[in-house]
């Protein structure tokens, strides 16, 4: 078979994802009530096999080339796993802070992208409004200053990634045991010049998300919502820490399921279930079982699991956030957007602190220790906790790899959100425009690595199929 044909085969599958044909099927029971909603996600599963036999130090670079949507998160999670392999138990201050700066830069640009380009049209125009206007071009026409801010904030984050990780997307900044470059004072000063403006814009974005959520709380609270467990890394003192920490899981009431778990032992706590209808697995907390052990990750989960945030403005915002649910976990799907903007502000506060830290100009960049055969690296990626797990043989080749990405952790929650929307909005045996809009809004709250979350050109490439209790197709509607 020619190379071209081989290429085609692998290309076609992911391209359907790029084009974004998200598919939802809704199954009815005998009384024509919603029995189950399924969100079908085509996940690529060959990666683990693909990297077998490759030298371990190539992996942080490889993953960021393949995962161009959140390259820095994969890059850092892989590098953290490789730190364990090379026995680098504590990085130098320069190395850890450069990596953190890179990570907060990624968080800032990713959250800004999601908010301004994918979510703000829903908030600014209302999610029942005409999709032809409800898109970023509509925002640019009606709120031109805001659209410019979105682009500039994203650019700022990307420039930080470029300065700390080499080229924008395929940076080579983190290597097993540390980093390969520090930040010069000249590079730093460029970022310091604009930092106050970025802080200001982040405050503005947070205000939009907060005001919208508070104002529409009665409508938003039940929308696609359900009680769930929540999982994230937290620092030893319980603070939010997006770069490093131990695992904490809480239930819907805020009681701890486990806490301060060393993530090298994640397999003792987390398992994955396979379901026949889905390419994507369903992770769950082992002690609770697959039925009750599923959980949410990402901004909402992180706001719920942490005891506090260690930057003043984001902490003030967190208190306002938790007050809405009387200091109990917030289980409102649409509150993801507000939580995301609190993290946007937290990230820029962190960036400011780091830029003023002289350790960034440190020259001691790499450490090594006793070589190990197995390593796990976790990071709080913009969309949620990201797991990288590798085993390396004596010839330095990868023998085993296991990745659990945030969209997979949120698989069951996204299905629940769609189901809730279907239960509330489906009437009769027809799929309406309104239902399509609402399903899209619920999925988008999770910021999945999917393109069915698209707003591009006012199009929503999402297909919904409705089946009766015998499995007969009743209706099918696509917007493309």
């Amino acid at each position: 078979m020619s190379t071209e044909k081989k290429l085609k085969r692998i290309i076609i599958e992911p391209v359907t994802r790029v084009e974004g044909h998200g598919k939802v099927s809704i199954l009815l029971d005998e009384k024509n009530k919603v029995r189950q909603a399924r969100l079908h996600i085509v996940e690529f599963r060959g990666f683990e096999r693909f990297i077998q036999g490759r030298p371990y130090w190539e992996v942080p670079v490889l993953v960021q080339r393949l995962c161009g949507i959140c390259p820095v998160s994969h890059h850092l999670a892989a590098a953290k796993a490789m730190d364990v392999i090379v026995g680098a138990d504590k990085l130098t201050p320069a190395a850890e802070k450069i990596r953190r700066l890179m990570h907060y830069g990624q968080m800032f640009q990713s959250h800004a992208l999601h908010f301004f380009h994918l979510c703000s049209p829903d908030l600014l125009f209302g999610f029942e409004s005409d999709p032809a206007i409800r898109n970023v071009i509509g925002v640019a026409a009606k709120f031109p200053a805001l659209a410019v801010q979105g682009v500039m904030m994203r650019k700022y984050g990307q420039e930080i990634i470029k300065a700390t990780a080499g080229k924008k997307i395929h940076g080579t900044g983190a290597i097993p045991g540390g980093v390969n470059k520090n930040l010069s004072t000249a590079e730093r000063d460029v970022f310091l010049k604009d930092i106050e403006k970025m802080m200001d814009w982040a405050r503005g974005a947070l205000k939009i998300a907060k005001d919208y959520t508070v104002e529409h709380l009665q409508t938003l609270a039940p929308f696609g919502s359900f009680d769930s467990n929540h999982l994230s890394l937290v620092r030893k003192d319980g603070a939010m820490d997006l770069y490093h920490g131990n695992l904490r899981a809480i239930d819907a009431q805020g009681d701890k399921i486990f806490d301060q778990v060393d993530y090298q032992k994640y397999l003792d706590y987390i398992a994955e279930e396979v379901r026949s209808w889905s390419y994507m697995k369903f992770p769950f907390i082992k002690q609770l079982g697959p039925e009750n052990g599923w959980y949410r990750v990402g901004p909402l989960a992180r706001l719920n699991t942490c005891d506090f945030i260690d930057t003043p403005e984001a902490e003030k915002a967190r208190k306002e956030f938790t007050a809405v649910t009387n200091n109990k976990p917030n289980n409102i799907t649409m509150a993801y957007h507000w939580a995301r903007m609190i993290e946007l502000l937290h990230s820029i506060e962190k960036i400011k602190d780091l830029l003023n830290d002289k350790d960034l100009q440190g020259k001691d960049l790499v450490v090594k220790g006793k070589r190990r055969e197995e390593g796990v690296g976790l990071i709080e990626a913009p969309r949620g906790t990201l797991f990288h797990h590798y085993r390396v043989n004596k010839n330095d080749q990868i023998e085993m790899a296991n990745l659990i990405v945030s969209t997979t952790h949120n698989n069951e929650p996204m299905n629940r959100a769609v189901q809730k929307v279907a239960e509330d909005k489906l009437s009769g045996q027809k799929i309406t425009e309104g239902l399509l809009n609402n399903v899209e809004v619920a999925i988008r709250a999770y910021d999945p690595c999917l393109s069915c979350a698209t707003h591009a050109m006012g199009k929503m490439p999402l297909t919904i199929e409705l089946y009766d209790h015998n499995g007969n197709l009743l209706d099918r509607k696509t917007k493309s």
Partner: protein
Amino acid sequence: MCLAIPMKLTEVRDDGTGIADIDGAKSEVNLTLLDKPEKGNYVIIHAGFAIEILDEKEANERIKLFEELGQLNQAGH
């Protein structure tokens, strides 16, 4: 995990939109996030937005990687 395959811009329009192509599969994309996109640029797309321009060398490196992935998938099925 989701993959980010470089696509080539075959059309750039004045209204900030365009067409990206990989191996004949075309996709309409929003280009407003890019700094001066040009026909022939390789881009990474997320949720209908082109989010990054890659230089040709980097794009080819990546396409080569995906090609290897494709061969592996053939062998595995």
